[in-house]
């Protein structure tokens, strides 16, 4: 039996037109400051020379340079994707600088420029290990380079490799060569090809066989320099029976120009390995008139390569002017499990087209998708998901739940779930709801003494509960606060 279903539903809706709500959303983007630091950067423009220069700065082996060039040549032949429900102003790839780094260059943590430490301090990510978040190792990526990684010694004792990608290419070339591009090939899509050609930094994680990573790993991405793009590349490999939980956070200064963040993240889980990957994305979303903000075009994919492996994506997306992102899982191993938990909040003129792909290849594979979209202001928020049951996916199951919450009357929520089922024993379930914060709910809260603003946060928080539960504790609190700030002025 072959069956496929394409379903599109669109809702644009009304809510309250209360002026107070508009006020609530007026709070500002707290991470919007600029760090004044001397930078080394490549001049804007992109050709093979740029890539060779970039590779040379990073002291890469020649195979890496060749890999990049091949990706670049492929990229030149590719059309820009236009299938997403997004309005994107044309991007001038020649106007972007593909490398920017603090002049002092990456050193040991003890020698990191105080201005940088202060930046991360301000963002709530202390890099001094004394002050660091308890039980969380951090790799801090500033524009194109990693400026420091904490707790490396403790991790090394457990056999865990956690460092910047640039370093991994130099220190562990055989591991990088084996796995890089094995989940997201260089020519996978337009932005993945661009990333493969010009990627700057990101994190590399390797958890050897049987090791349970002793602490949460996290990378904090910061865009600071003007007219640069950030091309993050992250690779996480979990060997047989290992276990890791990884979190990334992102912020950028307020600027009137759009900036590009085109990332590729690859996860590999071997037999019985588990990877939990959480994102709190708070790139600058642009102002209330839709000026500025980050273009966040990201390819994230996990490969459950071994039997009984598990990959779980949890994302809280509140930032970026435009988000284009579909963290996916290839369920190759028998009985492997893929999960996707997402909260995507858009406000003002933000646009998000996000969701997941669950590709079931192995027998008795299972996937679960819980997506919560919240739209406010004039924003547009789309869920786009693919569940594919291939011929060999005997007894595979998927459960998808897709809920949209609308705040205000000029926003939109859209759901595009695609399903392809090629195995008759596979079961696919899909549930979707669209709701709005009702006047009744608001009045009920207010009649009990709760202010309008607190009522909205409470209702939104309740709406997202299923996803917040999946985040590591410290970050669940963070995510909740972030939603509150992002929704300021949304009521009314």
């Amino acid at each position, binding site marked *: 039996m072959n069956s496929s279903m394409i379903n599109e539903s669109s809702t644009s809706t009304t809510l309250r037109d209360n002026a107070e709500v508009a006020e609530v959303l007026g709070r500002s983007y707290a991470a919007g400051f600029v760090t004044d630091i001397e930078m080394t950067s490549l001049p804007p423009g992109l050709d093979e020379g740029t890539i060779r220069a970039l590779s040379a700065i990073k002291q890469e082996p020649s195979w890496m340079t060749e890999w990049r060039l091949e990706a670049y040549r492929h990229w030149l032949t590719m059309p820009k994707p236009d299938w997403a429900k997004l309005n994107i102003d044309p991007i001038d790839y020649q106007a972007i600088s593909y490398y920017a780094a603090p002049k002092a260059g990456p050193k040991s943590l003890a020698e990191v420029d105080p201005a940088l430490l202060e930046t991360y301090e301000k963002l709530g990510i202390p890099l001094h290990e004394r002050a660091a978040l308890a039980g969380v190792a951090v790799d801090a990526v500033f524009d194109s380079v990693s400026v420091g990684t904490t707790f490396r010694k403790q991790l090394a004792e457990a056999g865990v490799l956690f460092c910047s990608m640039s370093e991994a290419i130099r220190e562990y070339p055989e591991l990088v060569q084996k796995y890089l591009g094995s989940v997201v090939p260089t020519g996978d899509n337009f932005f993945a090809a661009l990333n493969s050609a010009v990627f700057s930094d990101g994190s590399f994680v390797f958890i050897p066989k049987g090791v349970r990573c002793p602490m949460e790993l996290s990378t904090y991405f910061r865009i600071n320099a003007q007219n640069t793009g950030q091309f993050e590349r992250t690779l996480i490999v979990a060997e047989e029976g290992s276990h890791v939980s990884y979190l990334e956070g992102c912020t950028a200064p307020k600027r009137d120009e759009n900036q590009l963040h085109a990332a590729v993240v690859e996860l590999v889980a071997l037999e019985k390995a588990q990877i939990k990957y959480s994102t709190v994305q708070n790139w600058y979303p642009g102002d209330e008139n839709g000026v500025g903000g980050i273009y966040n075009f990201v390819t994230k994919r996990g490969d459950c390569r071994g039997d009984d492996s598990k990959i779980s994506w949890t994302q809280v997306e509140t930032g970026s002017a435009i988000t284009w992102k579909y963290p996916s899982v290839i369920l190759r191993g028998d009985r492997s499990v893929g999960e996707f938990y997402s909260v995507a909040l858009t406000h003002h003129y933000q646009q998000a087209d996000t969701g997941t792909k669950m590709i079931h290849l192995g027998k008795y594979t299972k996937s679960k998708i819980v997506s919560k979209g919240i739209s406010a202001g004039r924003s547009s928020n789309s869920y786009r998901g693919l569940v594919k049951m291939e011929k060999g996916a005997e007894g595979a199951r998927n459960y998808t739940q897709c809920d949209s919450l609308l705040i205000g009357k000029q926003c939109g929520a859209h759901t595009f779930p695609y399903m392809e089922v090629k195995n008759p024993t596979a079961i696919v379930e899909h549930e979707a709801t669209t709701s709005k914060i*009702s006047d009744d709910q608001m*009045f009920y*809260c207010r*009649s009990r*003494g709760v202010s309008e603003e607190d009522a909205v946060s*409470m209702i939104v928080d309740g709406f997202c509960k299923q996803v917040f539960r999946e985040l590591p504790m410290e970050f669940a609190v963070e995510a909740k606060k972030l939603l509150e700030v992002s929704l300021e002025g949304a009521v009314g």
Partner: protein
Amino acid sequence: MSMLKIENLHARVEGKEILKGLSLTVNAGEVHAIMGPNGAGKSTLGNVLSGRDGYEVTAGTVTYNGIDLLALAPEARAAAGVFLAFQYPVEIPGVNNTYFLRAAFNAQRKGRGEKELDSMQFLKLVREKLKIMQISDELLHRAVNEGFSGGEKKRNEIFQMAVLEPQLAILDETDSGLDIDALKQVAQGVNTLRSPDRAFLMITHYQRLLDYVVPDFVHVLADGRIVESGDKSLALKLEEHGYAGIAASHPADPRQAGAAA
């Protein structure tokens, strides 16, 4: 000074005049029942007093403990001690009942310039109230009204009232849709909360509730005004003659009967 003094209140909903010169005085410690046929304006009165959007007051005044109640936002009315038990309590999915109640409780305290309670202190208070109200603590762990039966929703309203300790409690058809056991339980809750400092305004269709919560005053609301006031015997008279009989004996009474002072 009376706790609540409503004078010549006129209010519109979607352009239609519903309250047409309602006057009523309520003192601390009193229980007033407001009865009347469908469409008389009973629920409108409750909504106007608690400040719901969409209810436009076109004339008259409402004075609560000496202040102009109509000038306050709903949350400020709550902090000042006005509580509305909803006819249709609202579901808030995913929001824990205890969390919601603590947010409300502390927001009210903050509004009055009082110290907020931390979660341990609050939990202690909640447990005491559960005991007094004879309500199972299973209620605490669920989301606000989500998946509650009709009876559970009404009980939850009474429980919220017990925790929030309002001065003026308005019960909007709290008895509707309840079976006799649930009705008794709700009535018992109300009786437990009766006190010399607290007043109740019970909006109801039926005299049935009044068998369990005996009011000090009964008012008949018809066509946007109070047309007759009396003691409990009025409710019994209504039961016998119906609203039609009462309304017929009060053709457009210009005096707009006031309540007992």
